[in-house]
């Protein structure tokens, strides 16, 4: 990669003020000598103005979509509770079965995990 290409690759970060001092100074030295780099920097600066405009855009879920989503999340919450309950019952039943088949001995995990 040539020195110019390297500086070109640093330009977006320079325009976003993300560079460390050493890199920033290097870019500024190159900018002082190159109209091409200055044009490129101007394009990035315009891009960041545009991105700022996009970031300011009021983007929000519509009221209807929000209600639908909250309803679905509520269903998800209760279904999750049901699943945990069923899993809990199944787990307890399984432990009881193991206990029964094991002739009344507690499952190994309750005997110290060996």
């Amino acid at each position, binding site marked *: 990669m040539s020195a110019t290409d390297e500086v070109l*690759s640093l330009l977006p970060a320079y325009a976003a003020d993300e560079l460390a001092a050493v890199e920033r100074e290097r870019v500024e030295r190159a900018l002082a000598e190159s109209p091409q780099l200055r044009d490129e920097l101007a394009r990035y600066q315009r891009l960041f103005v*545009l*991105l700022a405009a996009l970031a300011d855009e009021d983007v929000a*879920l519509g009221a209807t979509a929000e209600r639908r989503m909250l309803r679905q999340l509520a269903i998800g919450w209760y279904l999750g509770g049901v699943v945990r309950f069923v899993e809990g019952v199944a787990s307890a039943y399984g432990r009881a079965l193991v206990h029964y088949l094991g002739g009344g001995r507690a499952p190994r995990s309750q005997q110290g995990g060996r």
Partner: protein
Amino acid sequence: MAEDLSNAVTDSDAALVERIRMGERAAFDTLVRRHQAIVYRVCYRILGEPEDAADATQEALLRAYRKLDTFRGQSAFKTWLMRLTVNVSLNERERRKATLPLDDARLATLPEHTVDLRQAEAVTQIHQALQQVPPNHRAAVVLRDLEGFGYAEVAIALGVPEGTAKGWAHRGRSRLKDLLT
């Protein structure tokens, strides 16, 4: 009631997560209300369409609830949620394989100083251009330049090293620069 509202304002995400783990539905509602706007914005920026973004938002929040046990608090909850959000959005994007057609002729007619356009018009153009950026690079630009995350958080949200996150953001910016300026 007043106490509930007070809790909703003051509880940290981590405290809400603990309350959700103990089965408190109200805490889940509070967490959803707190983060649904940013989840929707990120989904919308990545997917490009409001309807798709609404579906992805719902899926991301549901997935967050289901996977809450995997949240270890090693990053901020918001960053963890962003990772789920980006994954859901990118998967959805991949599944649909639908890209918004870029109106090249329209982009070509953009004046040199686009900022002079009415803001709404400019915003539409940028949003369209953003859809032409490769998905990973777009996600990096969205998180870094539109949502203001630091690169460390962007990296966590994208599940890549920080250097990769920076590279993706820079390449996304470069593509947008070529499309828009």
